[in-house]
C-alpha cells in the first residue's frame, strides 16, 4: 500500500539551528504517532509537510504528491490542527468553520452545512453560535479540530491535540481522534509528547529525537516479540543476578532502586527466575506480570534504557 507521507533525507534549518537532520521516514495509512520530547522537531516536520518551512535538503511527498511541486494540491487534501490557538477574531464558531471550509474550496452553502455537521461531531453543537473569543481552552482545541475536518480531508495533521485540556476533555478528544482514524477512514498523523495519547489512538509510531528519527514501526512490533514481561522487587546485589539472568536467556533491566523488569522469551519458564535468585542470594519480595508499554519503546529509543 502506498505510504501516506514519505520523507527522504529531509533537513530543515532555521538559520544556524538544525531542526530536522537527514530525516527519512514513511507514514503508512491509518493513524501514526509522531512522538518525541519538546524540541525534537515534530512540529517542524508537520510545518515542512504543509509547505510553511521549505527544507534545505531532501524530498517530501504527501498522498503521492511532491510537497515542493504541488503545495496547494497537498493542502487541499489535508487538514491541519495547529498546536497554538488560531482563530479569526470576531467570528462565531459556525461562521469560522464555514469560512475555513470555503477557504478550502467548498461552495458557500456546502461549507455552512458541513460546519454545522462537524461542530456537532466534535461536541460543539450547542455552542456553535458563540463568539470564539469566549471559548475555553478545551473548546478551542475542538474548534481547531473542526476547522481541520470541515473540508473532509484525506489526511489530518494533529499537533498536540490534547494540550491544555482537562482529563475528561482529553479523553473525549482521544476518543474522537480514534474514531476518525479507525471508523471514518481518515489518515491521521498525531504529533505529541504524551505517550498515552499516541498509544491510545495510533497503530504506528515514529519517534523523533533531536531532529532525527530514533525509531519507527508498528507499536505492537516495537514493543517486542512474543513473550512476557515481569516486574520484580528484590533485595541483594543486582550485578551477578543480572548476569545470571542474561546467561539463562532472560533480558533484564535494572530499573530504579530495587525494581527490575525481566523479559521472559517464549519457551522460558518464569519460575526459573526464582531459582536463579535463590542461587545468587537475592531475596524476591514482589513478583508480578507486567506489559511493555510505548513508554518502554520511547525510553529505549531515547537511550534511557
Amino acid at each position, binding site marked *: 500500500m502506498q505510504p501516506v507521507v514519505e520523507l527522504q533525507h529531509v533537513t530543515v534549518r*532555521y*538559520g*544556524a539551528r538544525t531542526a530536522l537532520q537527514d530525516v527519512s521516514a514513511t507514514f503508512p495509512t491509518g493513524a501514526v504517532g509522531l512522538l518525541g520530547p519538546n524540541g525534537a522537531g515534530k512540529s517542524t516536520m508537520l*510545518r515542512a509537510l*504543509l*509547505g*510553511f*518551512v521549505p527544507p534545505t535538503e531532501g524530498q517530501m511527498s504527501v498522498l503521492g504528491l511532491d510537497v515542493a511541486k504541488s503545495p*496547494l*494540491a497537498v*493542502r*487541499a487534501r*489535508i487538514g*491541519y490542527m*495547529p498546536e*497554538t*490557538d*488560531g*482563530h*479569526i*477574531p*470576531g467570528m462565531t464558531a459556525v461562521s469560522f468553520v464555514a*469560512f*475555513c471550509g*470555503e*477557504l*478550502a*474550496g*467548498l*461552495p458557500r452553502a*456546502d461549507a455552512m452545512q*458541513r460546519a454545522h*455537521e*462537524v461542530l*456537532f*461531531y466534535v461536541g460543539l*453543537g450547542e455552542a456553535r453560535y458563540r463568539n470564539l473569543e469566549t471559548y475555553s481552552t478545551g473548546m478551542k482545541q475542538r474548534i481547531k479540530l473542526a*476547522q481541520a*475536518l470541515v*473540508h*473532509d480531508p484525506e489526511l489530518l495533521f494533529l499537533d498536540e491535540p490534547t494540550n491544555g485540556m482537562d482529563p475528561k476533555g482529553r479523553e473525549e478528544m482521544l476518543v474522537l481522534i480514534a*474514531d*476518525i482514524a479507525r471508523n*471514518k*477512514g481518515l489518515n491521521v498523523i498525531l504529533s505529541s509528547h504524551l505517550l498515552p495519547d499516541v498509544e491510545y489512538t495510533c497503530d504506528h509510531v515514529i519517534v523523533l529525537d533531536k531532529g532525527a528519527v530514533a525509531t519507527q514501526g508498528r507499536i505492537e512490533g516495537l514493543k517486542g516479540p512474543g513473550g512476557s514481561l515481569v516486574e520484580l522487587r528484590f533485595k541483594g546485589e543486582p550485578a551477578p543476578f543480572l548476569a545470571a539472568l542474561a546467561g539463562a536467556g532472560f533480558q533484564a533491566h535494572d530499573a530504579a532502586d530495587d525494581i527490575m523488569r525481566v523479559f521472559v522469551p517464549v519457551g522460558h519458564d518464569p519460575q526459573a527466575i526464582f531459582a536463579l535468585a535463590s542461587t545468587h542470594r537475592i531475596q524476591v519480595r514482589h513478583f508480578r506480570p507486567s506489559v511493555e508499554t510505548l513508554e518502554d519503546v520511547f525510553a529505549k529509543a531515547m537511550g534511557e534504557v
Partner: protein
Amino acid sequence: MPIHDQGYRHYAGRRRPPGTAWWVIARQQIRTVLSQKRYLILLLMAWVPFVGRVVQIYLAANFQQASFLATSAQLFRGFLEQQGLFVFLLIVGSSGAIADDRRANALQVYLSKPLTRVEYIAGKLFAPLAFVLGVTLLPALLLLVVHVAFSGSLTFVVQNLYLLPAIVLYSVALALVGTFTMVALSSLSKSRRFTALTFTGLFFFTTAMYTALSRITGSRLWALVSPRDLLSVIGDAAFRVPGQRALPLWTALLGVTVIVALSILVLERRIRGVEVVK
C-alpha cells in the same frame, strides 16, 4: 421519525478550483466592515460631498441666477481632494486587516488551506481598496454622468476629455498608496491601534518633514519623502492645474511605485505560515 445523523460524514460535493480563495477573504472582510455601525456611517458621510456637488451642478445647469456655481474641470480635482479626509479615515479603519490575524495566530489557519500568500494579501487588500475607490473614483465618475444628465449635452465632457483618465489615475494612485501602506504596516504588528497610530504618524510626519526640508534647503525635491505631496503632484498634473509643481509627474509616479513596491516587499517577508526567529 428518522433520527438525524450527527456523526462525521464524507463530503462528495464539488470543490471550487484553486485561485479563488482571495475572494472568500475579501468578502469576509467586506462583511466584517459593513457590520460595524461607525464604518457604515463613515461610508454614508463620505457621499455627502457628492450630494453637495450634484446640487451645485443642478443649480448651475438650470438657474441663470446660479451661474456663479458653473462647473469647471477643477470641480473634480477639488471634489477628490475633499474626499481625502474620508479616504484617510477609511484606511485607518482597516488597520486590523493583518494585525488582527497576527494577534489571533490566524495566519497558520489561512495558509494551511489551499491558498497562496498572494491570494491572502489580495483578499486583505481588496476591501480597503474597494471602499476607497467607492468614495473617490465612483462618485467622481458619477459626477460626470450627472453633469451630462443635468446639462443635457456632452459638450463639457468632450471639451474636457482628459477628465476621465485624470479621475481614474488620481483615485487609483490615492487608493493604492493608502491601502498598500496600511496593509503592509498592519503585517508588522499584532495591534491594530499601533498600526493606525503608525500610519497617522507617518502621514503627518512625512508631510512636516517635506515642509521643513524644502524650506531649509530651498529644494522641492523633498516632496519625494512625502506620499501626500507625491499624490498632490499627480493630482495637479492629471487635472492640469496651472502653476509650477514640486516634481515632474514621472518622478511622482516613480515615488508612488516605490511605496507600493516596498509595501509588497514587507508583505512578502511578513506573511508566513510560521514565524521563524533566527
